[in-house]
């Protein structure tokens, strides 16, 4: 493998240490000033559109939803709620009119939190795994030279270029009981109602729709790899499989991890496909209700409680991302110095 490392100027380990001779303090200050200019625009935009709603959601999550004033028949503000909105979701607890807390009955959204949590993670695990494998395969094929490569690239773009609002309706149309899929397969599967069929209908549709995203990002990673590395690998007698695991995978890892990370974040917030395909139904009623569907249902019943649920969802996703970055090494911002010393890969 020695030839391989030498032929790869981009491998972190082969980078000579650059900044060793300089005074670190001065460097940091100059860098810090540059960084401020460069990062501020992005942070300002994110602050307006994401920061503000998140902060206001957190504040509202500690307010009770409006209650009905029996005398006038009008809603009145609910007042301070403490953590009761959070308890409502996490403990699936409903407080009755007399103030007694009990388990939420089926049909109350509060009874669905952990079920929606499980469903969301189920979808995330399956779609991301499928999309990664398929996406890698597609990227490798697109990166090869052969007649008709243009057609393949065009075809791969299609699922993703169709607006989601249309895709969801297209799949709803395809998965209908009297639709084309059952007609072609000669089956009578209830794609939008059976517990597992409905789950997989969503997984299939999502995988179809989003694999191109993975494929394009992985392809961009592949394109940055110099072919000479492979040449060298071949001279070393590495088999195709060995080449994949020893060369391709490590070299596209940065792009791959970013792709997977963002797919996980998106999948954990999945809304439109299940909302249009199954309205969150299936199984005995809620087999495809995800956390985001629950948020929308709750917004219609009361925004403050929905804010608590959004905040919980946010925290859950935050924890997942944290674990991902820490333990899978998706840390894209490892410091330059450590990178140059080859401490982190």
């Amino acid at each position, binding site marked *: 493998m020695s030839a391989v490392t030498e032929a790869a100027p981009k491998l972190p380990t082969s980078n000579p240490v650059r900044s060793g001779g300089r005074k670190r303090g001065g460097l940091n200050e100059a860098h*810090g*000033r540059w*960084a*401020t200019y460069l*990062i501020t625009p992005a*942070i*300002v935009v*994110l*602050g*307006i559109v994401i*920061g*503000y709603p*998140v*902060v*206001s959601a957190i*504040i509202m999550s500690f*307010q009770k*939803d*409006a*209650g*009905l*004033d029996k005398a*006038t*028949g*009008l*809603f*009145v*503000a*609910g007042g301070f709620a403490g953590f009761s909105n959070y308890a409502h979701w996490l403990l699936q607890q*409903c407080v*009755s*009119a007399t103030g007694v807390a009990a388990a*939420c*009955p*089926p*049909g*109350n*959204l509060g*009874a669905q939190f952990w079920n929606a949590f499980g469903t969301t993670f189920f979808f995330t695990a399956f779609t991301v795994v499928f999309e990664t494998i398929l996406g890698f395969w597609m990227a490798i094929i697109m990166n090869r030279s052969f007649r008709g490569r243009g057609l393949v690239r065009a075809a791969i773009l299609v699922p993703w270029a169709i607006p989601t609002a249309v895709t969801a309706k297209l799949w709803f149309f395809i998965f*209908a*009981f*009297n639709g084309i899929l059952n007609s072609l397969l000669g089956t009578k599967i*209830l*794609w*939008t*109602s059976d517990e597992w069929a409905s789950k997989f209908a969503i997984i299939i549709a999502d995988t179809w729709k989003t694999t191109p995203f993975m494929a394009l990002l992985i392809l961009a990673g592949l394109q940055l790899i110099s072919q000479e590395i492979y040449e060298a690998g071949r001279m070393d007698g590495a088999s195709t499989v060995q080449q994949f695991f020893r060369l391709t995978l490590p070299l596209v890892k940065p792009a791959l991890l970013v792709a997977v990370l963002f797919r996980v974040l998106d999948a954990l917030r999945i809304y439109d496909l299940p909302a249009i395909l*199954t*309205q969150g*139904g299936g*199984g*005995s*009623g*809620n087999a495809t209700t995800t956390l985001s569907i629950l948020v929308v*249902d709750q*917004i*219609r*019943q*009361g*925004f*403050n409680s929905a804010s608590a649920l959004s905040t919980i969802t946010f925290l859950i996703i935050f924890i997942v991302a944290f674990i991902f970055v820490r333990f899978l090494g998706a840390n894209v911002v490892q410091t330059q110095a450590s990178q140059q010393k080859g401490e982190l890969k």
Partner: protein
Amino acid sequence: MNKSRLAAVAGVAVFGLALAGCSGGGTAGGGNDATANLTSRGPITYVQGKDNSNVVRPLIDKWNAAHPKEKVTFKEQSDQADQQHDDLVQHFQAKDAGYDVVDVDVVWTAEFAAKGWLTPLTGKMKIDTSGLFPSAVKAATYNNTLYAAPQTSDGGMLYYRTDLVKTPPKTWDEMMSMCSIAKANNIGCYAGQFAKYEGLTVNASEAINGAGGSVLGSDGTTPTLTTDKAKNGLDLLAAAFKDGNIPAEAITYQEEQGRIAFESGKLMFLRNWPYVYNLAKTDGSSVVKDTFAVAPLPGLDGVGASTLGGHNAAVSVYSDHKATAKDFLNFLLTAENQKFFATQGSLAPVRMSLYDDQELITKLPYIPTLKESIDNAVPRPVTPFYPAVTKAIQDNTYSALKGDKSVDQALKDMEAAIKSAGS
């Protein structure tokens, strides 16, 4: 200490907090808005979902020709009911004076009224509701106050195959006994709307009301679902699913899937709205063009209780020109314009006299049947907690129909879930 990071973090935090301060929950009562601008006139905006068959535009043109100083602008929303609802909520919460007259589904009326967003139609705003269907007026009334003008109505009807069934069934049992005919012809017997969405609430309520039960008691808040009558009603649906008189795939049906099954000859009885009539007569793929007719929904021992559909028109409390808005409501209610709703858009008028109109009957042969349906129709619960109530009904009915839960248990859970809704 690094200034850049600190500045960025602080900036976001301060910005976020400062902005968060300007928005409240926006759900408190209407305050003085309801009594403001009651006599002022001027241009207004009318907001409604998609104008499917070009009914509203000509009506507005007609109004504008007659009222050049009080013109109406038409704001068309999306075709999806949920999105129309959410769009209205957003604009009301933002106290938008740009939404003067809004078209609301009958089931949203109480919610919006209780939030203080609709102008009560009392005093200077009073409109004449005589001659309208009492059930439609009831569905526009909350807390003994009329909050909206009934605009169009809707009722369920039973579509049946005249080549297979000579006389339509009067009762549910009679219909079930005819299912052997469907079986002999290798087609499904009966279907309605049983997918998990608003249509399931409609169908479940029909079953419960048709058996003499009710979802909520007369006070409009206490659920009355753990009664024998309610159980009898829901039992009929569950049993029909179990023995196959309702085909298993009907659990995925919304209005359209049922219509397609009926039109392609795969269904003998279908519960649906009047819109199916013209399509089944004219669709290229319809194989039942000349072999179907409509009848009132069958009940336990006579005509069943359809769930009342339709829309109301209401005046926003934030409107600047409420006198014009009130005139526009009256304009929508005139016999002439109500007839136009029917002839142009196949929408059911709320004015009872029109159902004896010979021209209308010739054009829309289902009109007498529809009248019987609406006459016996029951509004869905008029409650400000409707989103929670319909969710409770949908979730538990769905489980019961799929056989995952006994009807008894489903009704018990439904009752508990409605109680937990905050009422």
